[in-house]
């Protein structure tokens, strides 16, 4: 109904799409706070383990499962092996965030290429490629990742490839949709008529013009991938000693509910906060770049 009212209103004079989006994003308090908090966590994860008073793998036999103690520099206490939880939590953050980013990049790469090619060539190519996506959608992916980890051993490289490989489906669909509508635009037709090679058109014209939705969706993929990784690690199927991740720490903490709550609370707090921030940033970006809902 408001649309009818707004019909008579002229659009605001053109500022750039990106400048406009940036302005809207900065006005979104949840997204800004999310970005700041996430920045602090990321910085702590990168620099923290070096700054912490204790190394991540030092074992203090006399301080096993000790509650947080500032005098000794164990800000988050120690684990069942007498290792400093503060250092380990920050270090685990480094692994979780890095895996999340790396796997998202894998999923973006596969999804963008798959979707752009399917959408650009259309016809039978499109039908076959998207049918494959449909079939893959119907599979219980989580279980395949678990199978993969069981059969091929638990190495981090495989882990992030597997995570990325199962999260590109939505991205492919989104990019395909964008490409389909772009393909009919004049500048693409002009490029085609000018005899420019398909690969070049896709790289130079299609992909850059899909950037908005890709960024939004990638931001929302990162928390999902972090979640998957923690899930696997929690089950003991993800990251393995001597490496650690938030999922591993939470799993250890969940076994020490009686008498070692800090072992659960700190890693869980970090993971939850990170997921919150990423969700807020993703929602903020979506509202900023695609303000239809407002």
């Amino acid at each position: 109904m408001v649309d009818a009212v707004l019909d008579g209103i002229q659009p605001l004079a053109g500022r750039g799409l990106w400048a406009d989006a940036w302005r809207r994003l900065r006005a979104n308090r949840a997204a800004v706070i999310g970005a700041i908090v996430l920045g602090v966590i990321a910085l702590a994860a990168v620099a923290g383990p070096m700054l912490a008073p204790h190394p991540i793998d030092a074992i203090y036999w006399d301080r096993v499962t000790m509650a947080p103690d500032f005098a000794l520099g164990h800000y988050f206490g120690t684990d069942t092996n007498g290792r400093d939880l503060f250092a380990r939590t920050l270090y685990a953050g480094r692994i979780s965030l890095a895996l999340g980013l790396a796997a998202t990049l894998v999923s973006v790469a596969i999804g963008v290429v798959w979707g752009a090619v399917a959408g650009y060539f259309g016809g039978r190519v499109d039908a076959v490629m998207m049918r494959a996506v449909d079939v893959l959608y119907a599979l219980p992916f989580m279980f395949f990742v678990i199978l993969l980890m069981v059969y091929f051993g638990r190495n981090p490289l495989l882990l992030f490839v597997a995570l990325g490989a199962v999260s590109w489906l939505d991205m492919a669909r989104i990019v395909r949709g964008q490409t389909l509508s772009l393909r009919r635009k004049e500048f693409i037709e002009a490029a085609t008529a000018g005899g420019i090679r398909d690969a070049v058109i896709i790289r130079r014209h299609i992909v850059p013009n899909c950037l908005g939705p890709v960024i939004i969706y990638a931001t929302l993929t990162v928390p999902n991938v972090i979640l998957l990784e923690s899930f696997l690690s929690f089950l003991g199927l993800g990251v393995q000693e001597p490496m650690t991740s938030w999922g591993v720490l939470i799993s250890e903490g969940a076994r020490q509910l009686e008498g070692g709550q800090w072992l659960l609370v700190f890693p869980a707090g970090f993971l939850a906060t990170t997921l919150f921030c990423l969700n807020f940033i993703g929602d903020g970006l979506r509202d900023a770049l695609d303000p239809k809902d407002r």
Partner: protein
Amino acid sequence: MNAILEIEHLTTRFATPDGEVHAVSDVDLRLDAGETVGIVGESGSGKSQLFLTVMGLLAGNGRAEGSARYRGTELLGLSRGEMRRYRGRHMAMIFQDPMTSLNPHLTVGRQLTEVLNLHKGMDAAAARAAAIAMLEQVRIPDGARRMAAYPHEFSGGMRQRIMIAMALLGGPDLLIADEPTTALDVTVQAQILELLRELKASLNGAIVLITHDLGVIAGLCDRVAVMYAGRLVEEGPVEAIFAAPKHPYTQGLLAALPRVDAKQPGDLFAIPGQPPNLQRGIVGCAFAPRCHQVIDRCRAVRPLLADLGCGRRVACHRVGA
């Protein structure tokens, strides 16, 4: 005279994230029993919002001021419960888009009979019989069987007939048709207009026909009211206004009508410019920026509706000055 609806100084505002929008601004209008009044204007001119205000169907962010009296009863201050007793029973509305205005999840019969259950207290059997009779009246054959069908099983024209039947079931004496033919094919439009013409003869109250199509008004209405940017700019008997429009906007609208006697296809006239932004307060005449007869006073002072006699009113500084 027997007034069905009297609207005075009606203003409707919407609070939007980008500021307040004046959809309807200080409108006066009176509808008498037995007459059919056309409301004409571009989309966004406030013609639909005016009558949604009367029906109490404004979107949540809308606020109305002024007065709208149905047979002497003030509608604007009514509680939601009191307003409900008028809607459907005394005043009914037919909407523009029959595709989306019927509930896709309920059978047509259910949507028709619930009006009778509600307003006439009929039991299921009586309501069913009455609904089938009404379908007959709006020329839907085989009503008994089609009561069990869902809206998507009907064509657009048939759905609009169902909408009209639904509006008539409560026995209203104010029928508001909001662009009833806009979403339909041309041939179907003619059929629906024919149905409305028949209704006009049988209905004992007033009909409001909201449209942007002057042709529809010419064929069906006794009086016409022209709205621009939320304001009523000209009002009067259809023949008089079509013969000699006073307001420059009405003149422009009529000049923009395609005519059979046009010398060439390229002869169509279009009013230059765009309707104003309703978010900013408009000083002076809303049409001034597009008007070819504009004088300084138009930009400074809002022209009020002046009575020209013979039931004609116009809001323009250049008329009768």
